């Protein structure tokens, strides 16, 4: 940081949507931070999107409402956007651009870090391992989150993803180690009531102490949403790689992020891709998701849990589709379960945690974890088939074993899947419930687990 500031240009060629085109500029850099000054002296932040022919296209984060070509000036600050970081950011609440909104002063910075982050050297990356306990049975038991993983939640409009996100933020912990754990929570384009719910939920549970909140509200300028996940990840990387903490980053809702990206793309008159999203949506999303991981010789880790709402519950929509290519699995919330009042309404048959196997088992969770999880998958999928069959031939047409599977289906949803919003289950409790569900079946139906585990944990019901 230097004392020398940038030049302020007052020749504005055009204002178009969230973009301001400044004319006659010299020595301006791509991605450079810009301060837009309005006629009444108000300042708004922006960044350079394109430079050429002595013109600079500036994306104004706080929107261009009220700006006019005459009287507006643009000061090119001579640096990219940076986030001041220090341990003091823990327990703080910021807006979508990283400015405090909790009535406390700016944190005293230890460092100023470029919000775009430094790319991780692939050679320095370490494979994600070790378990993060969320206290939510279906995630811990069947879709285990591993330190350094990126595991999104695919939800739909109106479903309970935000309640689940807040519950994970409150309860998540690393077990069996004294390493410090932190949660960075970025709310992107959420309603005021939701933002308040997140804030209160963390405050009342005492979890705010180890959390950092970034709140971009639905009525905040959409363009700010481009920055929110980046400032959040910058803070997460600092906590992980400089302070050695295990950090869980929850980003909700990434659909709002993609919509903001579409807005800018349209204003720049770029050739639209699928559903009007820019052709570089995949690349752009990867610059966010790929910031999860672990680095060799560094103690901490960044684990990401982005949440996105699928428009019309369409899993083939470009946002979930492209997200699924980058991330290591997905947790899908099911509309049917949600309608039945099941919380969390996770449809396990459409969900998967690709690297779960590296975070569970003896020494991490328990020796039978993988096998009992497979057995539950198997039994629940069979229960779904039997339910479909019962819909055609009726219960009377089912065999005794089929009827047992129907019981397993109900038991799985009522005893294992269903959980209180404040219910924090240990991994032992979760595995116990998984055994309880499959214990509704006769022993000879348990084909995915070793006999020694059956002898140890099976209790006929």
């Amino acid at each position: 940081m230097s004392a020398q500031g940038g030049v302020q240009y007052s020749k504005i060629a055009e204002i178009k949507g969230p973009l301001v085109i400044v004319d006659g500029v010299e020595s301006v850099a791509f991605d450079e931070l810009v301060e837009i000054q309005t006629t009444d002296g108000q300042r708004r932040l922006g960044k350079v999107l394109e430079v050429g022919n002595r013109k600079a296209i500036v994306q104004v984060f706080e929107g261009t409402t009220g700006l006019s070509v005459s009287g507006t000036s643009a000061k090119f600050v001579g640096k990219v956007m940076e986030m001041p970081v220090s341990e003091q950011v823990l327990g703080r609440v910021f807006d979508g651009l990283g400015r405090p909104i909790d009535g406390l002063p700016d944190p005293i910075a230890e460092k100023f870090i470029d919000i775009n982050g430094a790319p991780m050297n692939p050679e320095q990356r370490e494979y994600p391992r070790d378990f993060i306990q969320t206290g939510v049975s279906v995630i811990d038991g069947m879709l285990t989150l591993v330190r350094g993983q990126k595991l999104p939640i695919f939800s739909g409009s109106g479903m309970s993803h935000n309640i689940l996100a807040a519950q994970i933020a409150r309860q998540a912990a690393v077990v069996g180690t004294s390493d410090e754990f932190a949660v960075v929570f970025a709310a992107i384009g959420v309603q005021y009531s939701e933002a308040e719910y997140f804030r209160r939920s963390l405050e009342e549970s005492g979890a705010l102490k180890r959390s950092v909140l970034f709140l971009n509200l639905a009525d905040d300028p959409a363009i700010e949403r481009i920055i929110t996940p980046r400032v959040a990840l910058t803070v997460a990387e600092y906590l992980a790689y400089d302070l050695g903490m295990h950090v869980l980053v929850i980003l909700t809702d990434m659909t709002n992020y993609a919509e903001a990206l579409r807005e800018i793309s349209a204003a720049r008159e770029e050739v639209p891709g699928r559903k009007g999203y820019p052709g570089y949506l995949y690349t752009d999303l990867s610059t966010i998701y790929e910031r999860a991981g672990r680095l060799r010789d560094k103690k901490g880790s960044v684990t990401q849990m982005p949440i996105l709402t699928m428009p019309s519950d369409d899993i083939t929509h470009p946002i979930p589709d492209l997200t699924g290519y980058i991330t290591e699995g997905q947790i899908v919330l099911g509309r049917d379960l949600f309608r039945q009042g099941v919380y969390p309404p996770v449809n396990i048959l459409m969900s998967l945690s690709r690297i779960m196997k590296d975070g569970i088992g003896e020494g991490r969770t328990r020796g039978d974890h993988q096998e009992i999880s497979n057995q539950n998958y198997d039994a629940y999928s069979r229960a779904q088939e039997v339910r479909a069959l019962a819909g055609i031939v009726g219960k009377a047409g089912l065999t005794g074993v089929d009827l047992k599977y129907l019981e397993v289906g109900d038991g799985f949803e009522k005893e294992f899947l269903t959980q209180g919003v404040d219910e924090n289950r240990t991994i032992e409790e979760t595995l116990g419930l998984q055994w309880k569900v499959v214990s509704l079946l006769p022993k000879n139906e348990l084909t995915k687990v070793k006999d020694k585990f059956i002898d140890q944990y099976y209790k006929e019901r």
Partner: protein
Amino acid sequence: MGVDSALERTVEKILQNTEQQIVSSLKEALKSSQATLANSQATLEQEHDKILAEGKKEAEKLEKQIIGNADLDSRNKQLLLVEESIEKVFEKAIAKLQSAERGSDYSKLISSLLQESIDTIGTSEIIIQTNSKDKSVVQSLLSKFSGATLSSDAIECLGGIRVQSKDGTMKFDNTIDARLDRLKPLIRKDIASKFGR
């Protein structure tokens, strides 16, 4: 007589059988009650353990909540106190800068600020603005910067200059206020470190 004794024997036998049945039923009932009691004991113990575990969990949750909030409250109070002290330091520094002597060193500072502004803006055809106190210092330096003119309007600032290209399209703020503003985050850190933060 013979009939009576046969009847008595029969009654006796029935009574014996009934008694045996009653005793056996009582034994069965006792056994079953004992088994039920034993089972209930286990269930009771399980329930007892469950209630205790849930209570412990709830207590831990409350403890975490109370300690977490208390820690955060005290940290936040500390932050506000440090910030208050930092602001006081800034106020004193600004007061000192305002009353600083405009000697030869100050003239050199203005000269370097002027040169820096011309280099940044890329033209020497500029209009300079400064506060009323520094006008004479800037005026005395104008001969060294051809193309530069001093605006008759004074600006409100601690010191330094603000320049503008003569066509009005570019401005560069090189006042002490602007420089202080830009460096404030770093200065805050230095001041806070003096308070042991």
